[in-house]
């Protein structure tokens, strides 16, 4: 399998025939444009009846989902390079291009996005009372932006989508939010905008740096990967990128916007999208941060890892004592995100594959949990756990789903989260036993706070008013069944994902290692260490390899 270099256009001739069906038309652009156009229609046409825009949105999302499935089918699992790549000039004066591509890492981000957006529209069907058409328009806009982030291979293009995401997010919370929405939106702006605008400066300096080194102006990441960042610029630039991504992720201590955003967004659909939004942070770490600043990642990896571990345990700790069920789940995803970042920054194959799997799994399990909470909220009109209890009596079906997804989040093997978690633990463990121990301990905490939450909501004597809380409708059942199926599928047969992720992940690592080797003369003890680790990873690719090298 071809590694290291990114090659556009799928390799592997024997699969050509299969790919012909969609490979020769710009499927990625269509993926992005379709929802954008849909949103445009919804916004521009003065609909008289709220029903039509929602159907339109659902249709668009559905088509996109099918399209991404076709993409998945045509994807060549053997190649670690970029596939279905498109490249056109956008602003030739700047050397900014409109270039898209998908590899094993982004493929599943795309799939989960299209899926969750579809789900979000389904779940918010009965939930939005005011202007549901407008709402679904914003959701579609989010989808376009998310897909743009996951597919763009041009730093400026990426930044464009990255920024533009904020607007629909802002409106989803600001327009449909609960009483405290104003504060939530302010926080959202201060954090994410502050972070990403700093990143803009860093992007520009990287851009000029690249020009100074090669004499060409370009934002194409494949070329920018080659830029070697001098020591003096490394810290500020890396830090700017890091903060931007860490805020989106969100990594402790940049996380406090998330609980508010989650708690104030009333519609479960919106919350799901937030769940996707925060995956962009982790994804950006993989796609941009690691290959662009391997030496930063190498020398500061221990710090980041410690931060991630902190987030992991801290989030779990705080989730335990939440009384607002949405905040609770929000903090739980803070904890999960810590795990993901950990997986990325242990800089080995298991860690990264685990992180990607984890992103997908969290989107599914937490997303479903949020949908359920939304259904509960629709009936009980409260997010306060102490107002609930004994719900199982009146809603056994929902209780079953709730239990299912809770167990998935707890990380029961056979359900999706476990695989990612375990791989991350393993990756951490083989880098440093302490990391592994600290990370694994979270399984106890997760079980504690999630099951306690479940107990307080579902078990015990039921309040009288609960009599009126009817069980799931058919629509809701369908909405929850879809992710449930995926949760089991991924949990039982993660090979589907892993096979496609592995080439890209290892290509990523190899590239990072190569660049690091180039910057080696720049020296730095940590980098040497890192290089050693990398070689461990790369050796670990080859099956015939005696043990002992991984002895810490």
């Amino acid at each position, binding site marked *: 399998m071809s590694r290291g270099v990114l090659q556009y256009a799928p390799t592997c001739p024997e699969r050509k025939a299969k790919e012909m069906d969609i490979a020769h038309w710009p499927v990625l652009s269509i993926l992005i444009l379709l929802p954008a156009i849909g949103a445009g229609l919804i*916004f521009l046409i*003065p609909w008289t009846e709220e029903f039509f825009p929602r159907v339109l949105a659902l249709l668009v999302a559905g088509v996109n989902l099918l399209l991404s499935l076709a993409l998945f089918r045509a994807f060549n699992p053997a190649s670690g390079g970029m596939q279905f790549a498109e490249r056109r000039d*956008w*602003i*030739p*004066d*700047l050397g900014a291009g409109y270039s898209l591509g998908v590899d094993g890492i982004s493929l599943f981000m795309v799939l989960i996005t299209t899926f969750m957006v579809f789900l979000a529209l389904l779940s918010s069907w009965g939930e939005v009372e*005011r*202007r549901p058409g*407008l709402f679904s328009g914003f959701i579609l806009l989010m989808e376009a932006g998310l897909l743009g982030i996951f597919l763009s291979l041009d730093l*400026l293009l990426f*930044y*464009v*989508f990255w*920024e*533009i995401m*904020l*607007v629909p997010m*802002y*409106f989803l919370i*600001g*327009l*449909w939010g609960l009483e405290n929405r104003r504060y939530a*939106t*302010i926080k959202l*702006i*201060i954090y994410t*905008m*502050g972070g990403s*605008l*700093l990143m*803009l*400066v860093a992007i*520009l*300096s990287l*851009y*000029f740096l690249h020009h100074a080194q090669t004499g060409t102006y370009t934002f194409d990441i494949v070329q920018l990967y080659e830029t070697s960042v001098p020591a003096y610029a490394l810290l500020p630039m890396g830090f700017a990128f890091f903060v931007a991504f860490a805020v989106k992720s969100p990594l402790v201590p940049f996380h406090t916007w998330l609980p508010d955003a989650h708690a104030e967004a009333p519609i479960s659909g919106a919350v799901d999208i937030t769940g996707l939004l925060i995956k962009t942070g982790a994804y950006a770490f993989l796609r941009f941060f690691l290959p662009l600043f391997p030496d930063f990642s190498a020398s500061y990896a221990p710090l980041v890892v410690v931060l991630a571990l902190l987030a992991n345990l801290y989030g779990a700790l705080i989730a335990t004592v939440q009384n607002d069920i949405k905040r609770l789940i929000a903090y739980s995803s803070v904890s999960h995100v810590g795990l993901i970042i950990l997986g990325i920054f242990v800089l080995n194959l298991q860690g990264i594959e685990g992180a990607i799997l984890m992103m997908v799994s969290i989107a599914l399990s937490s997303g479903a949990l949020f949908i359920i909470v939304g259904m509960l909220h629709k009936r009980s009109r409260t997010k306060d756990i102490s107002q609930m209890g004994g719900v199982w009596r009146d809603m056994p079906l929902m209780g079953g789903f709730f239990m299912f997804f809770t167990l998935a989040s707890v990380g029961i093997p056979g359900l999706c989260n476990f695989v990612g978690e375990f791989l991350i633990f393993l990756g951490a463990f083989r880098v440093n036993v302490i990391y592994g121990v600290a990370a694994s301990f979270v399984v106890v905490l997760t079980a504690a706070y999630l099951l306690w939450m479940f107990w307080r909501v579902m078990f015990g004597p039921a309040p009288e008013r609960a009599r009126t809380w009817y069980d799931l409708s058919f629509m809701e059942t369908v909405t929850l069944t879809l992710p449930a199926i995926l949760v089991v599928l991924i949990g039982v047969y993660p090979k589907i994902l892993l096979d496609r992720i592995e080439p890209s992940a290892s290509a990523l690592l190899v590239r990072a290692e190569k660049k690091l080797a180039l910057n080696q003369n720049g020296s730095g003890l940590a980098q040497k260490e890192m290089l050693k680790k990398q070689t461990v990873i790369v050796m670990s690719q080859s099956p015939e390899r005696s043990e002992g090298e991984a002895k810490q």
Partner: protein
Amino acid sequence: MEITFPAVNIDSTVPQLIVALFAILALLVEVFSRSSRMVFATCLVGLHIALLRSLMQWGRGIPYESSLLAVDGYTTFFNVLFILIAMITLAISLSYVENTRVDGGKYYPLVLFATLGMMLLVSSMDLLMMFLSLELLSISMYMLVGSQRDKWVSTEAAIKYILTGAFASGFLLFGIALVYGATGTISFSKMESILGGLTGGVPPMLQIGIALMMVGLGFKIAMVPFHMWAPDVYEGAPTPITGLLSTGSKIAVVALILRLFSNPFIQVSSQWVGILWVLAVLSMTLGNVAALLQKNVKRMLAYSSIAHVGYLLVAFITLSTRGMEAILLYSAFYAVMGLAAFGCIASLTRAGGSTTAGEGERLKAEDYTSLGYTQPVQAAILSICLLSLAGIPLTAGFIGKLYLFGAAVNAGFVGLAVIAVLNSAVSLYYYLGLMLRMYALPGRFAPAEEPVGSLFGKLVLLVLGVTIIALGIYPTPLIGAVKGAVTALSAL
């Protein structure tokens, strides 16, 4: 001693002449046929002809050396820009003028005179020409600001503007005098060579002169600390004129500053770059912070335009070609955004000009609540403008900011760039805040309200809105033009 009158190449200055001609013509039309629509038509025709004429000069600026006027790609670029600005201003004025009982007969020709002032200002090649055109511009603006005679705010704005403006031009004039005294010439080109040959320290007289000129010019572009007049005048002036103030006259002066400071005064740049750094930061920060909690939309936009001057200065002090390009690009973008924004506000005006909400002009932020559902077109365009002003991608504003900050980073002013981006982060709060208000979900019993604004006005706004998006997605053509203009400027 004998005076040598410089030869003026008529052919090259035809656009300016056309504008002047039609301005006068319009006045005559006003005298004979009392219909302001006729005047309007005359002015518009004139502007179109001028536009065509200057488009003919597009690209090939007449390379010729005059001590009065330079007619080069740079001038042509701005001529076209100013003519377009004037046209848009007229277009958005039409219904406004009729709704608010402004005397259109005087109003439209004055806009043309102002335009003439801008055009001449850009092409002026010596201090005298500069001063004259600047005054032409200012005086017609004074009158335009006050042209809403039955509204006190308009009058007060006018008196404030003329008092402070004249005060400022006093400084300017004295500064010019000192510079003249220090260099012995008023022609830019001569001055450049003289300053180039300057040996030893800069004479204090020149320093003071430059400082005073900065006061005068800084006043025109509403740079902190000479910005105080701006919010009041912007608020009081008739809304389309506010648009013209914030775009046309400002851009013209910026263009002049570019010519003046990046050619003759570049020789002594070490003198003034540092102070401009400080002033840029002040303008950005003060403008944005002050705009945060403004209840009056026009005032908010006034502060935001102060902030934008700060952004322009950021690129300006890099004194690099890239910076110049960025400034030209951004001023073009800003012209569209600003005019469109004020145009929307203007077109929301109802007949019968009292300033209470719902009736007359919509000025207070509350008047904009749920506007998106009652006045969809204006709200949509206004939102596009706000996004663009905020620098959200896929709008012109983003590309502009990209170029501005890029220039700063490229020239090593990273710290300044960081301050700038943090500022634009702050600015998001009020731009998006207004937008959020406009789309706030209407209550169950939202009062029904029929759409206002003439179809013509809406069409114009629509064009502007589309332009903003289009330029945001595909700015390349404009970039080409800008590059041409800048090369012409540095070719001098």
